[in-house]
């Protein structure tokens, strides 16, 4: 599902959240949107399925202008779009499986079929053993995986990820990133991912979009953006990436040294 945003503007009172955003994401493309906090990333992604109403501009999803859709058309669109929230947004009184199939059942899918699809989605995110648990019985990472399964169960043509790891501790971030990594590698819906995870973004993204003060300041393939950043924000992300790579090299050298020492100890023991 192709997404095209033209001159999108959104204000909250006096605060300008989006100040004329232009963006194109081709069908099956994975676009990662990065930028400092408060730059309008979440607003942009929520405007796409009209969880937030934009003030001006055009949002074309699959060729249809979302802002001109009737309520029925909007509902239909939302059922084809998966949305993963930063705070999971699970319904506390429903089980894991019920949370996943809520949208399906209420959109008219038979309960049995919905449960099958739900169970499959949960299996994909590694939550097959927790179908009948309630959200409060799960860890943050598990809850987010349920949130991802809920989006997947819709069999979406477009997936919108709103900082899915921002509310998680580092261990749980890893859990969720692994799932996302796996999904981006194996699924083919169009994806718009808002995240601060630079390594993940550079590994997974087909297109990196840098947003600052409500405007797209730079976009393109991640390798290109990181190699020749044109904006201050791009340079900052590049520095961050290089620091990360250096850190990784140090870790690798230390790891090799430890391996050599261990081999030597084993050889010495064998010799003696």
């Amino acid at each position, binding site marked *: 599902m192709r997404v095209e945003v033209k001159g999108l503007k959104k204000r*909250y*009172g*006096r*605060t300008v*959240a989006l100040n004329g955003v232009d963006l194109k994401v081709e069908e099956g493309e994975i676009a990662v949107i990065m930028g400092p906090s408060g730059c309008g990333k979440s607003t942009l992604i929520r405007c796409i*399925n009209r*969880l*937030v*109403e934009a003030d001006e501009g055009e949002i074309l999803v699959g060729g249809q202008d979302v802002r001109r859709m009737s*309520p029925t058309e909007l*509902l*239909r*669109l*939302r*059922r084809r*779009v998966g*949305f993963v*929230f930063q*705070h*999971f*947004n*699970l*319904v*506390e*009184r*429903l089980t894991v499986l*019920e949370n996943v199939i*809520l*949208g399906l*059942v*209420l*959109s008219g899918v038979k309960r049995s079929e919905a449960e099958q699809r739900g169970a499959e989605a949960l299996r994909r995110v590694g939550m097959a053993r927790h179908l009948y648990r309630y959200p409060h019985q799960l860890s943050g990472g598990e809850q987010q995986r349920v949130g991802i399964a*809920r989006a997947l169960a*819709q069999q979406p043509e477009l997936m919108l990820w709103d900082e899915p790891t921002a509310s998680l501790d580092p261990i749980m971030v890893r859990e969720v990133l692994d799932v996302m990594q796996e999904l981006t590698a194996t699924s083919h819906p169009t994806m718009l991912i808002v995240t601060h995870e630079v390594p993940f973004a550079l590994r997974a993204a087909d297109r990196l979009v840098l947003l600052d003060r409500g405007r797209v300041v730079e976009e393109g393939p991640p390798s290109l953006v990181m190699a020749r950043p044109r904006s201050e924000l791009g340079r900052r992300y590049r520095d961050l990436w290089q620091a990360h790579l250096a850190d990784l090299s140090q870790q690798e050298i230390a790891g090799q040294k430890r391996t050599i020492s261990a081999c030597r100890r084993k050889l010495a023991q064998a010799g003696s």
Partner: protein
Amino acid sequence: MGIPWGDGLLLFRDGFRRDVAVAVLLTILLGIAVAAGVAWATDAYFGETVTGLLGEAGEYDLIVQVREEAKGAARAEMGRVLRQLPGAKVKEGLAIAGKVNFFVALPAELRTRRVFESIGTYFNGLPGYAGYTFIIEPSLTVRGVPAGAQPLLLPQIEDLPGVDFAFRHGESITAVLKDAGATSSVNASLRRLLRRYQVVEVRLPLGYQTEDLPALSERIVNRLRDQFHPRTAVDITGGEGGDDFQAFVSTLAEVRRFLEGYASRVTVRLQGWEPLRPGDEVVAQGSSSVPPVVGERVRSDHLRVRIQAVEGQTARGLVVEGDPAPYLQSGAGLDQAALTAYRVVKGDEIGPQVGLIRVENERWRIIRNLEESLRMVEQLHGLAAEARGASEEVLAALEAYDRTREELRQAQEVLQQVNAGLEGPLAQIRQSDVDRLVAELNRVSTSIGSLISQVEGVGAAPAPGQSELSSVLNRLNPVVQILAGFRKQIDLFVVELQGFSRLSRSTGVVRELLGQMEQAAGSTLEAMQGVDTATLRLQLTSVLERLEALEQLDVAALKAQLEEIKAALPDLRDEEIGRSVRLIDQYIGGETLPGQSLSLLLDRDLEPAALKAAIGREVKSDRVSLFALPVGSVEPDVRGTVLHLLNSVRGTIAGLVALVFTFLVLLLDHSTVISALRRLSERRCRGANRRWWQWRPDASWLYGPLAGAAIFTGVYLGSGGRLPLLPAWGAVPVGLALGLLTSLLAERVSPVRDEQILAGEAVGLTYAQVMREIVIPAGRPGILQWLNRRRQKFK
């Protein structure tokens, strides 16, 4: 920005509007059932209680109340009483507030006006008797009918269709009906009858004096008849005299009048242009050493006076604080500063000068007079003795007077004889005649001298009998003056006479001298005889008798009595009197006093203003107060009254239940909807940096009050709720207020998380589905949640 609650209203799409409407409707029906049910249960319970207390309708005619401690004796005595009412039955009821109720049923033949009007005489001999109440059924009672109007109304009430008979008791007339079915028609007839009349109470102005109130009343009635030609114009003043309250108020008025007479009367002679009005206060130096100073505070020892009346340049008032003694003792001897009065302003500040103050006090005079009387009584015996001595001296003077007169008469005879002996040309006075004449005249002169000294000695008579003695002496004094002149003539004549023998004067000269003397003696004697000494003596005897009685008085006892009277005079200070008068004024309404008012029974259509003008002209005052009152009010019988009361209670209970029910439903059910509305409305304005004055209501502020108004109005009116001071239309604002309160509390009672709504929206749920599957199931249990379960897919 558009309509601030536009986003909120999205919630009511896709069928949720119908869910809410059904819930509100069901809530109203349930609320009506609950409120009406609770009220009905209360009504039924108390209705049973009433039947238990009063028996079946028409079973008993009156309740006789007896003090609980005398219950046994009263029960025994009741049998004797009932023998005078053959066929009557009695049932002992409950004791309430220390009184036992005996329910008495009379046989049909005793249910008459005569028996009912005299029923008290049968029972008032019961031990511990504490009154009775009629519970005759069916009946209607007209209460508050002045006694004077009752004879006029009673026959008219008895003539009404459906009325069996009527009887009077106290200020009420009870109409006993032939049939309970006639109650409403008789009630309407009675109200129509009462609407034809009005009782006009005329209060004459303060100080209005009339010796003959009935005559004045008759004049007023005649004037009203002449001027307005009413069907009814009757003086009913006399018929109200027996009222206890009137008597009490009259007594209070008398006490007030006594106190006013007893208090210091303060007069302020106004100067300048500073006007005073009744109720104003003025202050003077009083017993304080510091005179009032304009702008300073009134001191507690200053004399503070409350003005009661102002006439021209003179204001009269009563002391409300301070001691007026310096003004009473020193009177006019006080200086200008002490006499100056100032207005009291701002409650306690000395204002501008208003005039000069003068204080009089009858009580102070009485005490002064009593003290004088005591001093007099102590001297009474001494004074009586002195008066007696003086009276006896005057009596002695009268004796001397008579004696002198007799001697003068004899001297006159001698003069006549001697003068007669000198008839003829050659006659010559003899020495023996001269000697005889001289002796006689000297005796008269001596007597006159003695009389004069006696009368002069009596001069200073003491108080008792003083007037009588003065009267006697006043009668004697002119004669004594004449006698004094005559005595000088005698003395000169005697000297002349003694010279006759030596000078051998001619007979003519002698005769001329003798003639002059004889004439003088005659006129003196005539003057003396003009005094009726016998009458004077009788007067003096009477005085002596009274003095004797005075001397026999028990002076010690008299003195003790006077001391007692002095001690018995109330020891009230002026400020106490002033405050008491003010209190009484407040209680009895100030300007008019009982006894100075008239009650008239008049046609209802006469305008009070026109009546007031006509009466004012008759009493020649425009300060007449006039109050138009209804002639009475119709009340049902006791059971009807109790049932009416219970109906009110039922309405109140229904109203209260409606109120509580509505609030609970709003909190439990609709606070969830309100919170959801607020979440949706806020989403549009999120991040807006608004000041408090930029706040605008969202849909939640509309929904809460509307739901509150709909539910409360429906339940309140549907259940027949009647809260005091709340008319039917008042249910709407109360409901709005409840809804508004719920809107305020909604997010504390039923918080709704935006994330959950967003989750629903994101997976393509309609708002109705979001509400049914996510929001309402997570809210408080209530009717909406219960209804929602039917439509809920995930239970």
